């Protein structure tokens, strides 16, 4: 039997390390998030949840990508155009020497390997300096297609403004010849790693000397690189990824160095979103003047979702279309196999809905008059939806605090006053839930379920593609009807809930919070009056309450608030909750915490972003410290 590859699941090495493989799979639309006026002359601080796209963005600007795109303009037309529009490449090649540095793992170890904290800090800067300089030499050689490290001796450096500080930087970093810089970097790295990795006790006071500042920033600010005496035209661009892996102390030192206004090298720094943390580092800096901040998911949302959904659709197409065409021999693309429309509604269901609403209307003339509208509609689906909408309106009318003693004598209005669009959405959701009809299906739903997260989107598409492969194996066309899509999505949502306990660092409080939010959503969405149509998928807290949470002293006065703070931070950084601060409700500002869209189908919740219920801090804090244990939560 022939074996098939699921391109959404594959994380084979070519996607990590092979530049052309990476460029072939990346959606260039992500570059639209960058404003070329504010990304080169000041630090760019990028933030996103895991899988949000920050590493992809940095990697697109690395020298390997820029050389890859420049060398295959015909294959990467769109990338060439977008990179050109932000000033990263031009017709002759890269204009930036993207120096990619991952800040993960090793650096944090320096702070926790037993060295006194001052020694650890000095070693951190020295090791980072060494790696930045080695990567800079690599970037210079790569920009000219030369082999690294063999050709390093051909690289020389001159400084635009040679002064004592530049000389000091050059002296500490191995001089002004590529091979010398490289040798110095290697020696430094070996020495430091040997200390950290030693199984036997280390005499830290006798340890190798560190750096009190990041000399490489000074060096690169003034450096002009030459190969065989000919100047390299690209300007260094420092791309620092995974800053969240650093310790607080290391991060502070690094960010302070990057924010230093005397530094002129272009520098981008990416870290995982820490939405609730108060950041002292930026307290004295002014956004847009001293640095540019880009929160990837928020920026994507503010671009009205459509461009981001286009990006996702393109990513899916880049991965799947080629394989599908190969496996089926057809020219049809991935999304063309996904049914958009629900199966036609049976007249039996329509009849049941109508009977139900007629019974509820009873002899109320106003309500009966509303029902007259139903027959004017053409399809059973429209009629069933209308009937279900009217049922909600009747329930709302009955729930009004002051019922009329007598019905009005004049002719009752056949048009109930209401917002038809949201009501219809709520009616559709209720109808699907009550009659086991597919609700989650279609290209747009897949994009929404991604919650602005590319990794999550790939996971969803991977499940759909697996279903397609099953059909292909059985010699069937890989169509995925609405019911199958709905089933796959609900199963994936359940799976996401189930895997949370093993993936969260503070699973009990975080799970309690998420489960309670989902329960609030379920309770309000499926109430008879559907008061918060089309449904509730989050909670909100006043900005005052959020400030109390952020302040350690105030927080300590609220029972359970510490747990809640930890749970919220965990959920937000892992993109399980999406926070939207300063949301205006009736003249007051609140922060909305909405569930990740993929958590919603397990509770049959809608996928719209706007529905939430406001809850006071004390109540929410009590949720995270209730008695439910992990085993119970797993069963939920």
């Amino acid at each position, binding site marked *: 039997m022939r074996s098939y*590859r*699921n391109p959404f*699941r*594959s*994380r*084979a*090495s*070519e*996607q*990590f*390390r092979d530049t052309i493989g990476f460029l072939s799979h990346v959606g260039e639309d992500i570059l639209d998030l960058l404003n070329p006026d504010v990304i080169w002359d000041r630090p760019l601080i990028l933030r996103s949840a895991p899988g949000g796209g920050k590493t992809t963005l940095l990697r697109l600007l690395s020298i390997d990508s820029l050389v890859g795109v420049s060398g295959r303009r015909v294959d990467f037309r769109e990338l060439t155009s977008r990179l050109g529009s932000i000033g990263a490449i031009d017709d002759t090649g890269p204009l930036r020497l993207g120096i990619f540095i991952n800040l*993960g*793992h090793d650096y*944090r*170890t320096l*702070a*926790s*390997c*037993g060295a006194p*904290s001052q020694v650890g800090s000095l070693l951190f800067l020295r090791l980072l300096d060494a790696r930045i300089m*080695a990567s800079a030499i690599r970037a210079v050689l790569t920009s000219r297609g030369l082999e690294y*490290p063999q050709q390093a001796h051909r690289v020389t450096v001159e400084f635009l403004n040679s002064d004592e500080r530049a000389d000091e930087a050059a002296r500490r970093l191995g001089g002004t010849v590529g091979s010398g810089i*490289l040798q110095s*970097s*290697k020696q430094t*790295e*070996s020495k430091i*790693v040997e200390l*950290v*990795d*030693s*199984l*036997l*006790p*280390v005499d830290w006071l006798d340890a190798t000397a560190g750096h009190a500042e990041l000399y490489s920033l000074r060096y690169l600010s003034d450096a002009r690189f030459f190969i065989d005496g000919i100047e390299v035209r690209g300007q260094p661009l420092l791309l620092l990824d995974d800053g969240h*892996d650093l310790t607080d102390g290391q991060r502070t030192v690094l960010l302070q160095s990057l924010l230093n206004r005397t530094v002129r090298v272009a520098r981008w720094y990416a870290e995982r979103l820490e939405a609730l943390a108060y950041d002292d580092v930026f307290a004295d800096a002014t956004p847009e003047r001293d640095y540019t901040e880009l929160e990837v998911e928020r920026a994507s949302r503010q671009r009205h979702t459509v461009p981001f959904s286009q990006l996702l659709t393109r990513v899916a197409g880049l991965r799947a279309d080629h394989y599908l065409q190969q496996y089926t021999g057809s020219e049809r693309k991935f999304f063309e196999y996904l049914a958009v429309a629900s199966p036609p509604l049976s007249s039996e269901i329509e009849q049941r809905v109508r009977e139900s609403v007629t019974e509820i209307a009873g002899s109320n003339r106003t309500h009966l008059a509303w029902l007259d509208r139903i027959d004017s509609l053409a399809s059973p689906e429209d009629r069933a939806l209308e009937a279900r909408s009217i049922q909600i309106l009747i329930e709302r009318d009955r729930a009004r605090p002051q019922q009329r003693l007598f019905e009005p004598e004049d002719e009752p209005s056949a048009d109930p006053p209401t917002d038809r669009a949201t009501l219809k959405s709520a009616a559709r959701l209720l109808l699907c839930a009550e009659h086991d009809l597919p609700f989650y299906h279609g290209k747009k739903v897949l994009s929404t379920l991604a919650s602005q997260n590319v990794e999550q989107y790939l996971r969803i598409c*991977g499940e759909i593609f*697996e279903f397609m492969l099953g059909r292909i194996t059985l010699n069937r066309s890989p169509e995925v009807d609405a019911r199958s899509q709905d089933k796959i999505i609900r199963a994936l949502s359940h799976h996401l809930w189930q*895997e949370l*306990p*093993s*993936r*969260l*660092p*503070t*699973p*009990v409080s975080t799970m309690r919070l998420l489960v309670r939010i989902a329960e609030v959503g379920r309770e309000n969405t499926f109430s008879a009056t559907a008061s918060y149509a089309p449904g509730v998928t989050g909670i909100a807290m006043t900005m005052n309450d959020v400030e109390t949470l952020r302040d350690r002293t105030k927080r300590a006065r609220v029972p359970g608030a510490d747990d809640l703070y930890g749970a919220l931070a965990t959920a937000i950084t892992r993109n399980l909750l999406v926070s939207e601060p300063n949301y205006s409700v009736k003249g007051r500002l609140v922060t909305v915490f909405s569930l990740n869209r993929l958590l919603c189908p397990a509770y049959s919740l809608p996928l719209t972003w706007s529905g939430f219920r406001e809850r006071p801090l004390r109540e929410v804090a009590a949720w995270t410290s209730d008695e439910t*244990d*992990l*085993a119970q939560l797993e069963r939920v």
Partner: protein
Amino acid sequence: MSAPSPWVDYLQRRGDDADALFQAASGLGRLVFIMGDGFDPRALFGLRRLLELGLAPVVIRIPLPRGPGGASSVAASENRHEFDRLAVSHGLTVRYASIPAEVDQTTVGVVISRGLIDSEFVLEGDTVVVDVSALPTRIFFPIIGTLLEHNREKACGEVLVVVAENPDLDEIIRSTGIVDASPVAGFWGPRHEAELPTISIWAPVVGESSGAELEAIFSFLQGPDEIYPILPFPARNPRRADDLVREHRPLLFDTFEVSPRNFLYVDESNAFDLYRVLTGLHQRHRKMLNGVGEVRTVTSAHASKTLSVGACLAAFTSRLRVVTASAHSYRLHAAPHPQAVKERTTLCCMWLAGTPYK
């Protein structure tokens, strides 16, 4: 760090046969017993056996982070009370390893293990028995590494490792909150900048419910060039290897794109078999790819403690990189029955360095 005795001929015994090793080793120097202070019902199994044999070691207890509560907290508390009772009734000398506040998951093991030497908890010529039953990888790998290195440097002393094996307990201990993958300090492997292109090989020892860990390590390694999943066969359950392949099929074949020819099999009850397989794999690739690129072999242990010891030995002698994505904490999914724990647990003892290899 150079290779000590290569364990071509090794000393490993189980059950009652292990007693002979304890008794032989105890006569060669001051007996020091290192153990974890956690909730694992096996935590005291090794110590009890030593006491039953009339041996009274100096005990070094390694504190472990508290789990998320429930049955595990109760079990941890019971273990502590039982230990205190044993210590008093047998007049044991007990020392507690200290963990500085600034250490994290990646360095906690190496800081503890350096501390054992620095604070003279372990002295030249001691017979040290490390009970890894209740210790996580990130802690016991550096401890074994440090003891082997210390032993080699001072050319004296005995190093033994014991594991209380119980597959039923492995089944009910669940991990909570996978931390990001990272190398274990002390086992970073060669870190110099390679002159030739680097060829990365990852040989994970695959275990049940380890999907999240495997995924995290794969991402950390950024897609290794070759993956050699190691499966337990022969095993008490002859279908265990097949079950593992079935459990991890989407990950191994779809995500990692492992070639079916790359599966390696090791005896699930023999740490030294895994040691041989791993070192052989590394050496074969180095020889094969000599001049083409520099081979960097990474291993990660997700199966039993016994096999983990084999991975530790291979990493120590061949300078393999060890990466973990271990859990933030562990918990008991259900409360085990004490009698069942006693009846189904077998003690396995491995003598790693000292007199038998001279």
